[in-house]
């Protein structure tokens, strides 16, 4: 069966943070993000996307704006 090898060894545990090329940082679980101004924002969903491009209108959360940026300005 496909994937059997993977299942026999057990998949690696998922990381707590995933850096998405050209896009946000995914964070899993309930945590508090402090932004550059020192303001604290608590996550409110099982997985959250923290903006890395600095252009989100919903900062600190990603709102997809990174996709409108030229490649060299993307994280």
């Amino acid at each position, binding site marked *: 069966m*496909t*994937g059997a090898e*993977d*299942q026999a060894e057990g*998949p690696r545990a*998922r990381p707590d943070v*995933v850096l*998405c*090329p*050209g*896009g*946000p940082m*995914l964070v*899993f679980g309930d945590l508090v993000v402090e932004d550059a101004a020192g303001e604290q924002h608590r996550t409110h*969903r*099982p*997985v*959250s*996307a923290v903006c890395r491009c600095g252009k989100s*209108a*919903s900062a600190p*959360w*990603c*709102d*997809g*704006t990174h*996709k*409108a940026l030229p490649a060299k300005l993307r994280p």
Partner: protein
Amino acid sequence: MLTPKARGPLSAALLDALHGTERPSWDDLAPADEDDLQLSLWTLYELSFRGFDDVDPALEWDPHLLDLRRRLERPLEARWRERAADVEVGEPFADGLMQLIEDDDGPSLAAVVQRDATREQVLELLRWRSVYHLKEADPTSFTLPRLPVRAQAALAALQYDEYGGGDPARLHRHLFALGMSDAGLRPDEGAYVDDAPAIVLEQNNALSMFGLHRRLRGASLGHLAAFEATSSLPSRKMASGIRRVGLPDSLAAYYDEHVEADAVHEQLAVRLICGTLVEDEPETRTDVVVGAFTCLDLENRFAEWALERWAA
């Protein structure tokens, strides 16, 4: 919900079969047109979701109806595969898939809603969209038990968010229903199916077909990836257009929620779901691409249809 109105000889015969008044021979019947075809298939698929108040639930697994469903599915699946035949996705697969979706440059209904659609046009669009939004995320749930572990864990996380993190008040399809109701529209599932053009039913049928067949799990997840990755920015435009024409804030809030939610979901769907699925089950690669392309292609065809109608 009640069964929709027939749109031709095939859907009329199907409704007779569903109401138990006839047992038509499918050999003698062909869909009259796209409306008759898509409505018939949509009606058959709904038996596997919340069903119809005027149809015996046991008919979901009736071999005679499943025979018709298969007859309608085959040419439609072939159509979608053919339209996607020349699509190529580079490696690494997740990056290639994201690129394919980002490169899509079809017309944007959300941009028109944001800038210049009339209130009546926005309401019309909401009625068409309601066919899916009132069962949002449901077709993809059928894919969940058919996945290898990594894709399954990531899809479960995504669906949990779609379903409000366990809170009915935050469940996406419920948020949409509340917004519809506040806007003076009917919030019950299927309320506007009779108003939906064939292309909207085809969009819904793609989701249902991909979701209901284990064989098509790759297409189901590819569709999910394209859907989520074309949602954040358009949702912001939808929310602003809805406020511009003075529709209720609860409706705009449904789209606000999708700006942030889908910025998360697109990464989950493209990288942690489709990316790992194709690594663990490489035979699904082509279907992931077919599913993603079908989502983009159907939305573009729908947008063209709607813009033409509004321009007339």
